[in-house]
C-alpha cells in the first residue's frame, strides 16, 4: 500500500514535470543545469557602498536587478538570469560569452539626474537613422573634438557664440551638437554611452519607449548639464492630487521631496525655467542617460516638494516614483567575479559528475551485498527509490523555483548516497542485534525498527540542521550543495520509513529470510544468536533484565503446542521426582 502511495507521489511529480515540459518546451524530465555544467558566463556584482552608509535594502536590490535586466535586454542578450544573492550581491548569468560592452553596461550604476531641456524633437522617430548626416562632417576641424575636451564648459572653438551663462542657455548647442542631434538614432541610445555621460556637458538623448505602444515615436532631446543630482531626492511617492480644500481629485501625481541641497538647486532651476518658453520651459528627469519624464515648469518651487502631474495612472505614477526613489540611490556595482565556462568544459564536468556518482553507487551496492548478502538488495532497492524521488524532486524544483543543478549540487547528491545508505545500515545492524538477543525475525524487525528510527531521526536531524544552516547563510555554490543535501536527508527518512521498513516486514514473513537462509544476511547462526533452536536459550550476555524477560516471554509465545506440552511434562516430571 505504501509502495502504491510512493508510486502515486512519483506520478504526481511526473505530471508536474509533464506540465512543466509543455510550458518550457522540451527538457521535461531533466532538471535545468547551472552554468558550470552548461557553459556560459556568470558575473557577480557587488554593491559599492559608501563608507558609513547602510547596506542596500531588499527593495533597493530588487530595483537594481530590474534596472540591470532592462540594460541586458536592451543589449539583446537572451535568457539572461539575474538574481540577488546573499542579501547584497547581484548575480547575472548569461549563456555564452559576454562581451566587454555588455559587462560595462551592466556595471554602470543607476544614475538619476535633472537636466534642463534645450531642444526637443518630438516628431522624430527611428526613421531618423536614415538621415545621412554623418557627424564627421561637422565643423570639428578646428581640432577641438568635444569628446576629448575635459573642461567644464565647451571650448571656445566648439562654441563660436558666447560662453553659456546658465544651464538653459542655447549657447550650449554648438553646430556639432546640433548635427549629432539631427543624426541621433534612438535605437542606438544604449550604445551611445548616454548612461555614462559627463554631467557637466550637454547631452543628446531620447525618451523611453512606451512599453504599451512600442511603435510610437520617441522624442529626442538636447539637455543642458546636470543641475540637480538624483541623490538629493530624499523621498518620492505616488499619490492623488488634492485640492486646496483637501478633496481628492482622482488625478494621479508623483510627489518628490528634496533634501536641503536639492531644494535649493531645484528652486534655482524652476525660477529660471518658469520664465522661459517652449521646450526650454521643461526639465528632464534622466535615468541612466534616458529621459524618463520631461515635465513643464508650472510654478517656482522653493520648498523642495515638487509635484509632477500629467496623464498618470496609479501604476505609471508608482513606477516613476520608484524610479525617482531607487534610481536615485548612490549604489553602483563593481564586478566581483566574472566566470566563463565553455559549453564543452561544462558538459565534461557533468559527465564526470555522473560517472563519479555511478562509481560511488556501484561501490556502495557491492559493499552492502558483501556485508548483508540478499538484505543488501533491500539497500539497493531503497537507494533506487530514493534516487528516483530525488531526481523527480530536483526536476520539480527546477521547474517551479528555477533551481539549477550545479556541480556542487551534484557532489551533494553523490555524498548523499552514502548518508542514505547509512540509515539502512543502522537499521539492519539493529535487527541483527535483536536477532543476537534471540528474537525471531518478525519481532526482531519490529524491535529493531523502533530503536533504529530513533537513531535515524536524531542523526538525520543533525544532518538536516547542517544543511539548513548552510542554505540560509551561504551564497552561491554552497547553497546548491546544501539544498541537495537537505532534500536528500528528508527523502532518506521518508524512504527508510515508508519503503525499507515495510519491505523488511514483508520479507520477514518469507521462509527464505525467517528461516535465516545463509545468504539472507539474517542467518541467526552466523550472527551467533543466543537462540539455539527449539526454545532453548543461552543466557544472553549483557541484556538487561527487562529485555530478557520480554524476549523469553516472546519465546514462550512462539513455542509450538507440542513444545509447550513437552516443557510442561518435563517440569511435572521433575516435580514428581521431588515428591
Amino acid at each position, binding site marked *: 500500500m505504501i509502495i502504491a502511495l510512493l508510486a502515486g507521489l512519483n506520478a504526481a511529480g511526473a505530471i508536474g514535470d509533464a506540465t512543466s515540459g509543455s510550458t518550457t518546451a522540451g527538457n521535461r524530465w531533466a532538471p535545468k543545469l547551472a552554468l558550470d555544467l552548461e557553459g556560459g558566463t556568470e558575473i*557577480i556584482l557587488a554593491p559599492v557602498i559608501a563608507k558609513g552608509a547602510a547596506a542596500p535594502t531588499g527593495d533597493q536590490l530588487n530595483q537594481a536587478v530590474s534596472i540591470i535586466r532592462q540594460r541586458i535586454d536592451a543589449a539583446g542578450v537572451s535568457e539572461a538570469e539575474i538574481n540577488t544573492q546573499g542579501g547584497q*550581491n547581484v548575480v547575472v548569468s548569461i549563456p555564452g*560569452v559576454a562581451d566587454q560592452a555588455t*559587462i560595462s553596461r551592466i556595471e554602470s550604476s543607476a544614475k538619476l539626474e535633472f537636466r534642463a531641456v534645450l531642444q526637443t524633437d518630438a516628431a522624430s522617430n527611428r526613421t531618423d537613422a536614415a538621415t545621412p548626416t554623418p557627424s564627421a562632417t561637422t565643423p570639428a576641424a578646428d581640432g577641438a573634438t568635444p569628446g576629448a575636451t575635459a573642461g567644464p564648459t565647451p571650448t571656445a572653438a566648439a562654441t563660436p557664440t558666447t560662453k553659456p551663462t546658465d544651464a538653459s542657455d542655447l549657447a550650449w548647442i554648438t553646430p556639432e551638437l546640433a548635427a549629432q542631434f539631427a543624426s541621433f538614432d534612438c535605437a542606438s541610445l544604449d550604445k551611445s554611452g548616454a548612461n555614462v555621460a559627463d554631467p557637466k556637458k550637454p547631452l543628446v538623448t531620447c525618451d523611453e519607449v512606451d512599453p504599451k505602444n512600442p511603435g510610437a515615436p520617441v522624442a529626442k532631446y538636447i539637455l543642458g548639464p546636470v543641475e540637480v543630482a538624483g541623490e538629493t531626492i530624499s523621498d518620492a511617492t505616488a499619490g492623488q492630487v488634492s485640492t486646496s480644500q483637501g478633496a481628492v481629485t482622482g488625478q494621479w501625481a508623483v510627489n518628490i521631496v528634496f533634501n536641503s541641497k536639492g531644494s535649493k538647486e531645484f528652486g534655482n532651476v524652476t525660477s529660471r525655467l518658469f520664465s522661459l518658453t517652449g521646450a526650454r520651459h521643461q526639465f528632464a528627469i534622466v535615468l541612466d542617460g534616458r529621459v524618463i519624464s520631461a515635465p513643464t515648469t508650472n510654478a517656482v518651487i522653493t520648498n523642495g516638494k515638487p509635484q509632477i502631474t500629467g496623464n498618470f495612472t496609479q501604476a505609471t505614477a508608482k513606477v516613476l516614483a520608484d524610479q525617482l526613489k531607487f534610481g536615485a540611490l548612490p549604489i553602483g556595482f563593481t564586478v*566581483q*567575479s*566574472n*566566470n*566563463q*565556462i*565553455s559549453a*564543452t*568544459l561544462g558538459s565534461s*564536468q557533468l559527465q*564526470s559528475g555522473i560517472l*563519479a*556518482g*555511478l*562509481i*560511488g*553507487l556501484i561501490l*556502495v551496492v557491492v*559493499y552492502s551485498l*558483501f*556485508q548483508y548478502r540478499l538484505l543488501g538488495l533491500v539497500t539497493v532497492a531503497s537507494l533506487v527509490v530514493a534516487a528516483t524521488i530525488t531526481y523527480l524532486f530536483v526536476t520539480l524544483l527546477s521547474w517551479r523555483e528555477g533551481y539549477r543543478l550545479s*556541480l*556542487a549540487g551534484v*557532489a*551533494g547528491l*553523490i*555524498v548523499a*548516497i*552514502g*548518508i542514505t*545508505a*547509512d540509515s539502512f545500515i*543502522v537499521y539492519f545492524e539493529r535487527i541483527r*542485534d535483536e536477532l*543476537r538477543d534471540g528474537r525471531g525475525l518478525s519481532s526482531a524487525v519490529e524491535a529493531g525498527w523502533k530503536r533504529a528510527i530513533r*537513531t535515524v531521526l*536524531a*542523526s*538525520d536531524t*543533525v*544532518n538536516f*540542521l*547542517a544543511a539548513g*544552516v*548552510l542554505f540560509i*547563510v*551561504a551564497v*552561491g555554490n554552497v547553497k546548491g*550543495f546544501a539544498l541537495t*543535501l537537505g532534500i536528500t536527508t528528508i527523502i532518506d527518512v521518508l524512504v527508510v520509513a515508508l519503503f525499507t521498513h515495510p519491505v523488511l516486514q514483508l520479507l520477514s514473513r518469507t521462509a527464505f529470510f525467517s528461516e535465516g537462509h545463509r545468504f539472507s544476511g539474517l542467518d541467526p547462526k552466523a*550472527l*551467533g544468536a543466543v537462540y539455539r533452536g527449539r526454545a532453548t536459550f543461552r543466557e*544472553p*550476555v*549483557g541484556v*538487561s533484565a527487562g529485555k530478557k524477560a520480554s524476549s523469553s516471554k516472546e519465546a514462550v509465545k512462539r513455542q509450538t503446542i507440542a513444545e509447550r506440552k513437552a516443557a510442561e511434562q518435563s517440569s511435572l516430571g521433575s516435580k514428581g521426582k521431588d515428591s
Partner: protein
Amino acid sequence: MASFSKFGNELYTGERSYDIVGKRKIWYAVAAVLILTAIIVPILRGGFVFGIEFRGGSQFQVSDTANLQQSLATRTVQSVVPNANPKVTIIGGHSVRIQTDQLTNAQNVATQAALAKAYDVQVKQVTTSFIGATWGQDITRQAITGLIVFVLLAGAVMALYFRTWKMSLAALIALLHDLVITAGFYGILGFEVTPAAVIGFLTILGYSLYDTVVVFDKIRENTLEDGGDSTRTFAESVNYAVNQTLVRSINTSVVAILPVAGILFIGALLLGAGTLRDISLALFIGILVGTYSTIYIAAPMYAHLRSSDELVKKHDKRVISARQASIVK
C-alpha cells in the same frame, strides 16, 4: 563475511572487547599531538595556500589542446603582460590553466587571443575568468557564520535529545577535533583552499555529528538499561556500547566514504583541480577523522565528563566494591 559478522557478534556479546574508554589518556594524547601538529605546522609553513577565489586575479583555461607545454603559457602571458605573474597547471590531461594577477579588461582580451594562437585553438576554447579578492572572503565569512550558528543549534538539539549537555559537549569537542585536523591536512600538504574545499569542510559538520549521534544513541541506551543494578561501571557501559556499535561505525563510514572516494578519484584523475576534487578531498579526510574521533574522542570524553557526576560516582563505587567482595570470597 562470516568472520566479519562473527567479529560483530563477539563485540556485541562482549566476548571480545577493546578497552577504548579506559585508555582515554592515550587517545587524548594522540589527539593533542595531532591538533598541535595541525595548528603549528601550517603556521611554520606560512599559513594556508589560498585559491584564486581568495587572492583575486584572472584565470585562463585552454581546453582540449594537444599541446600541454607549461612554459609556452608562461611565455605567452608574459609577452602580453610582462608582470602578470602567471601560474600554469595542467588539468586532467587535456587542459592548461593559467592563473595570473588581476589584469585589466584589455589585457584579458589580448591574453586570451595570444593564448589561443599559441596553443593553436579557437578563441572560444580559451575561457577567461576574473575574480575579485572579496568573493572568497564573502564565502568564508558566511561559512564562519554558518559554522557558529550550526554548532550552537546542534549543541542545543543534541542536549535536548540525549537529555544531557555532556553528550553535546563531548560530540562538539570531537567535531572541533575533526575540523582542526582536516584544516591541518590542507595546511600541511599545501592543498589550495578553494570555496569548494570550504563546502566540503562544512559538510564534515553534518557528517561528523551524524556518526557521533549513532554511537551516542547506543551509549544512552546501554547506560540507561544497565540502570542501577548493573555489574558494569559507567565507563565500562560506555565502552561496551562503543564495542557493540563498532561494526556499525565501520560499515556506515565505509559506505559514506565510498561515494566520496568515487568523486575524489574522478575529480582528481579526469578533471584535475576543481570543484569535485576540492569538495571530496575535504570530505574524505573529514569522514576518516570523524569516524575515528567518535570512537576514540567523543565516547571516552563523555565517560570522562560524567565520571564526576554524583550518581555515576555512587554507582561505580558500588560496582567496584561488589566486585572486590566477590574476589575476597
